[in-house]
Structure formats: C-alpha cells, structure tokens
C-alpha cells in the first residue's frame, strides 16, 4: 500500500538543447517566483559536454542552476544513438517529452507538468495543477472559441494543420491511464515526431489530437490565462493592470513565446510573419521584458550541439537525417550512425553507388545519398525522370552546381 500524503507533489519539467539553456533558466526563475514549492527539472537534449566550463555564467557557478538538470542518459530512451542521429535538434527535444514526464512520475511525484522552454510563468498555475490533481491527462487547446473576422478560416486551418492542443503544456498524474498515454506517446514519437502535415504529423502535436478519443479522464483546460501566445493573442486581449498581465478579468498565467527569436526582437514569431511587434499592443512590453531576462541568462552564446556532426566533424545535413529515418528499423545494421570509420557505416553507405557501374560508364554514378535526394523531391523527379540512365549526366551536374548548397551537403558526399 502506498501511504497517502507521503509522495512529493507535482513537478515541472522542460527539455532543451544546450543553446536553449537560457530559456530554461528564465522559465525556472519565473516558476519559482509564483510556485516556490514546485521542483523544476530540465532535461538536456544534448551531449554531456562540460557544464562547468567557463562559458557557464559566473552567477550560476555560485548559486547553481535554478533547476535540477536531467541528462539524456537518465531518461529511458531505446536506441538513443539512432534517435539522436535521425532527429534534428528540435525534433530530439520534442520527442523526449513523454520520457521526461515518465521520469518525473518515476521519481514519485503525484503529477508532472511539461512546459516548453519558451514559456514564462506570470501568475499562479492553479488550473493546471488542479487539472493534474483530478485528471489523468491535461491539455490546453490553441483556441478556446470560434474565431471571427476575415482571417478566421485561415487561422483555424492553421490550427487543424498543426494540432488542436498545444504541445507547450502537457500534464499527467501518477495514474495507470497516464502511464498508458505516455507509453503510446513515446512509441509514436520514437519514429514519427516529424513535420509532414499532409501525412498527419506536426512533430508531437497532431498525435495529441487523438488523446480525448484514446484515454479516459482527459482534462481540456479552457482557462483563458493559460498558454497565451501568437495564435490566440487577438482573442485574449492582454492588458496590464497595476503591473499585472491580465486576460479579461483573470490573470495571464503563462505566456508562450513560441517562434520568438531574441536575435530578431522586432518579429513576434517566425511562424506568422504578419505579426509585428509594433502592432502587438500591450503584449509587446512582455516580449521586451523577456528579451531582457534572456540576455541576463546568457542567450546568444550559441554553444555547439553535440549531435550536429559525424565523428569526423562533418556536419550532418538535414536530408541525411531524413533518409536515415525513412529507412526505418533497417538502420540497426549500420550500428552507430555517427561513426564514419566502422565497417558498414551509414556514412559509407551513403557514398556507395545505387547501381553497379556499367562498362565504360564515365562521369560517375549516382550515390545512394543523391538517389534519395532525387526520390524526395518532385521537382527533381520531374526535371530528371531517369537519373540512372538518360538523365544521369545532367542530374550529376545539378548535384554539384545546386544540390550541395541547397541541402548543405559537405563536399565529401558529392556524387
């Protein structure tokens, strides 16, 4: 029997690569201000690195990070090396959400709340904490009511493309139903945390559309102060009242700076270029404050990402990750995908020709890499219908003149 009352209360977690640590610090500090009782965990979707190196800001050396760091290896992720190779930095971080939530529940917390790193807590999070205390799973919808105005259909279709519920918040309780949800979510994100809207995927988010159908006891938190962001800002009507951010008559509980890039502080989000900071109204103050806090926490240092390169230092092009992912479970035969020197490495496989050399063929053959590039692009299939035969010369010329730069492919993988 579990003794009631002996378990630690809910915990909050986020996931970042090292370059996003300043965001996690701002989130953790803002959480501490409004919920000093909630422990904060940050999973590092990056290599171990040396977190005590001099680049670490001095004040953190003194008082430590405002959160407990969870290394990637602490999360129970199968085929970790393969996942780190197949996914981009962003995909890797997103795909770890179910693992982090399971990890926090595994430490005995009664509930676990995931918050995206680009969120700032502005007030008490009681509706979320209550939802997790009384339900197995809690989600926040992007929109809480039908939209009006000219852009209503475009904006709602945008949400249908990206998912009804925003993945910036996911809450779970220590329950069998939440465990079922997390096991399913982890399985799907293991291979299908991808941005392919026409196939039904938008990273982790479209999968969440299935949650109210699949699981019992799902709370859709329709509190207007939660998850205020560019997609619902026109309806939330954010105002400042005595220095407090308000949405209607209630506090703005947390703001989600989704797609905001501190290096371009005039742009609200990279996802909706039509929004300009100048036309944003009272919310612009919040962005200005956010930039200031991020700068204080060292944003812009841009430390390298551990899984950006092969073991010989060559950068891994995005299309190479895609090819690897598309191969499915078959990739196990390559062993460690980062390795360039091992027998039967993925790196060498990419360079191999897809067809045996025809006698007298000159000018080279199309490698597996360039064959996969060809298959992935309708325009190339249209322009070079027969890349291994009649169009081979022309296609190979294209790979050198345009292909390398369009796909950021290193010279070593030319042809």
């Amino acid at each position, binding site marked *: 029997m579990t003794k009631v009352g002996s378990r630690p209360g809910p915990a909050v977690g986020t996931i970042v690569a090292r370059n996003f640590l300043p965001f996690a610090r701002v989130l953790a500090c803002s959480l501490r201000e409004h919920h000093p009782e909630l422990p904060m965990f940050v999973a590092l979707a990056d290599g171990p690195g040396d977190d005590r190196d001099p680049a670490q800001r001095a004040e953190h050396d003194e008082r430590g990070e405002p959160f407990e760091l969870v290394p990637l290896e602490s999360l129970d992720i199968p085929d970790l090396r393969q996942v780190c190779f197949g996914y981009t930095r962003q995909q890797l971080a997103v795909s770890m959400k179910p693992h982090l939530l399971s990890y926090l529940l595994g430490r005995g917390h009664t509930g676990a709340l995931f918050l995206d790193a680009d969120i700032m807590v502005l007030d008490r999070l009681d509706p979320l904490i209550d939802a997790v205390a009384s339900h197995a799973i809690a989600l926040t919808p992007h929109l809480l009511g039908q939209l009006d105005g000219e852009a209503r259909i475009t904006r709602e279709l945008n949400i249908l493309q990206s998912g009804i519920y925003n993945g910036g918040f996911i809450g779970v309780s220590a329950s069998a139903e939440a465990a079922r949800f997390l096991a399913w979510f982890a399985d799907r994100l293991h291979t299908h945390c991808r941005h392919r809207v026409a196939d039904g995927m938008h990273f982790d988010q479209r999968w969440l559309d299935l949650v109210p*159908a699949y699981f019992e006891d799902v709370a859709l938190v329709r509190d207007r102060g939660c998850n205020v962001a560019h997609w619902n800002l026109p309806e939330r009507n954010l105002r400042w009242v005595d220095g407090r951010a308000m949405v209607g008559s209630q506090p703005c509980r947390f703001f989600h700076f989704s797609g905001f890039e501190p290096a371009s502080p005039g742009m609200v989000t990279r996802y909706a270029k039509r929004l300009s900071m100048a036309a944003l109204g009272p919310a612009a103050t919040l962005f200005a404050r956010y930039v200031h806090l991020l700068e204080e926490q060292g944003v812009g240092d841009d430390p390298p990402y551990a899984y950006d390169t092969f073991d010989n230092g060559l950068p891994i092009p995005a299309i190479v990750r895609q090819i690897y992912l598309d191969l499915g479970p078959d990739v196990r035969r390559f062993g460690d995908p980062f390795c360039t020197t091992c027998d039967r490495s993925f790196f060498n496989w990419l360079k191999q020709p897809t067809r045996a050399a025809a006698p007298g063929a000159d000018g080279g053959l199309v490698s597996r890499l360039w064959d996969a590039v060809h298959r992935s692009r309708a325009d190339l299939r249209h322009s070079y219908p027969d890349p291994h035969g009649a169009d081979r010369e022309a296609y190979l010329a294209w790979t050198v003149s345009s292909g390398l730069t369009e796909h950021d492919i290193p010279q070593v993988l030319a042809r």
Partner: protein
Amino acid sequence: MSGVPLDPPRCAATIVAKSFLAYARALAVSFRHHHPDVPFYVLLADEVDGFFTPEREPFELLALDDLQIPRLERFRFHYSQQPLSYASTPFLLAHLLRRGFSRVVFLKQESLVLGSFASLYARLASESLVLTPHLLAPLEGADRITRELNILQSGTFNIGLLGVADTPSAQRFLAWWQDRVFTHCQHAVGEGMHYEQRWIDLAPALFDGVHVLRDPAYNVGHWNLPERQIKVDGEQVTVDGEPCRLFRFSGYNPDEPGRLTVHSRRLTAGNAGPAAQVFERFRNALELAGYHETKHWPYAYATFDNGVPIPDIARQIHLGLGAAGQRFGDPRCTTVSDSFFTWLNGSDAGRSDEGPIVSRLWQAVHASRRDLQEAFRDPLGSDRAGFLAWTMESGVREHRIPAQFAAQSQ
C-alpha cells in the same frame, strides 16, 4: 408516417442524393425498427424529378430549399454530389432543432442501425454535442502508425454519427460549422481539411458541452473492425459482447461485395470474420430497398441547365470568385446573357487574330497545376499554341472537360 413524438422530442436524419435513395430507405427502416416512435428525416441533396413518390417512402423527405441555406444556388454549385451532402449536414441539424426537436441524431447514408440509441439520446439530456471517435484506444501491430496517421489525416471523430441537443452551445457550434463548410468542405489534407469532418476536431476546444462517446457498440466501421470483436447470432450482432447499435459501411460497393471498402485493401469479405455477414445483411437490405433501380437515377445538379456536365474546375473557379460570383446569379443557368457558362469560355486577355484563345477555364486549370506552369511558362503568349495543344490532347481527358469548353481548333 411518424409516430407521436415523445417528450423531449427526438429524431434522426440522413442526407442522400437520389442515386443513394436505397441507402436512405434501408437506414430508415433499420432505425425505425429499433425506434418506432422516433421520426426519421432524409434530406435530399438533389431533386426528386419524378423518380420516386416521397409520400410512399419510409421517412420524411426534406429538400435543400427547406433549410434556409443562404445563397443556395451557389452552395449547390460549389460542391459535387458527395461534398454537397457533407456540407449540408450542419444546415440539416439546425433545421431539425428549429423544427422543435430537442435531441437530433445524424447518421451518414451507408449505415445500418442494429440496436437502440437510448444511451446516445440520454447523453443529449446533459450535453450539447455527442461525438464518436474513429478509434477508442492506441492501436497495436505493425501497421499501427499507418492506421493512426490515416485517422489524423481524416479526423479524430467520425461524422457518420453525431448527436446535438437544442442548447445555445449547440446552436453556436452549428452556426460555426455552417460558416466553415459553406466554402471549406474540401478534401485538402495538407491544408487541414477532410470535407466537413476535420473541422469537428476543433469542437471540444471551441464549444461547451461536447461529449466524446467512447462506446464500441456505436459506429463500427472498417477503420476499427480489427479492434472490435464482432459476433453474429441470427438477427443479433454483438460488439465485444454488447449489442451493436450502429454499423457503418463506408466505401462499400454492393456490386463488388468481396471488397468490403474502397478505403482499405487489407480488409476483404474473406478475412473479416463474422463482420462479413453484417455486410451481407446490408447488401440484402439495399437490394430490398431498390438499390439496382436507384443507383441509376441521375444527380440533378451534375449539369448546367443546358445539360452540359459541370467540370470540377468550374465549381472551383466559381468558389474562388467569392462575392464576385454573385453577378452571374444561378451559375447553372446558361440562358441569361451574362452567364457563368459563357464567362468560362471567354478571356480577359482579349481575342487575337492568331487563332483560339486560352479561356478562363483553361487558365484556371493551368494555375492549378505546377507541372503545367513549368511546362508552359507563358500560356497566354509564347507557349499558347503548346498549351492549347495539351488541352486538346490531354487536358480534356484528365479534367473531364466537356466539348463545349474545349479550345476550338482553327
């Protein structure tokens, strides 16, 4: 005829074009068998045109004209037969609520009611909207991800079954759904649309009183058959040991009964187990309802009023014109001087002496296809002859363009 409605008044309804009238009959009969006191309505998204006698049907017939659909001639023109039925759904439901029914259940045409809907109507006592998901639990097996992605492409909830109550929230929901499907009832998965269905994924977020009915006895269909244990014992069909209430036959073609649905290659009458008997029962019910006769009945809105078939691209062009399309009046009408029909064959580019023009219709075809834009970069100028040759050789066939819109060779 309908019995005396009980308090609170309930009803059920479906929508068909008349070539599917046998489906409406079979569904109505199956519903009335389990609910003799509940009226069943059929919206005809078509015209009767003397093909049948509404008074002799086992349901109450409604016409599109009854539903207060704004700008009906345009609405009817914008969609081909099936999408028009889909887009009419929220208008039908709102009409039935206005008529005084307080609990309304919508069913898609290719269905059989096999048990009582009492638990569904009971839900509508406290909820505004009842939705049934395609799937009720995570899938297992090698094709689990493919199958779930299929659902994500088409919508979490299946709109073959929907319940609404006469509450302010349901009224708001229906007004919203009407507005969205009036222009955006398309099959464009990459843009977030799957006819009327994907819109409903938003309902639990946008409206109060939305209930997700997770009962395996409702809405059994090809998409969830592997997970539902079907047993047939004489008349009785059970799902996971409980009486089946609604069975769906989406994509089933009675003329090709071995293949249970066009939507799945893996499911056949040979491997479906006892469920195959339910499909067989459906086929018998359709035949009894006159399937072989009604399937030949023509769709009234398939042609302009001069009998020329309306190509899909013409529907899309008119839809794209928005309010500017109003000046043509009824777009099917060809007898007025400034008709949409005539306009499609004209061009803003003006007529040159050098042969046939590229009409607005063919300009729209060009604008809709990237391959044509690459192959014929300047369709009104230097590539005109080449593009026109393509329209004659391939275009008329690929887009099913009637001869009246073909470029005239001179």
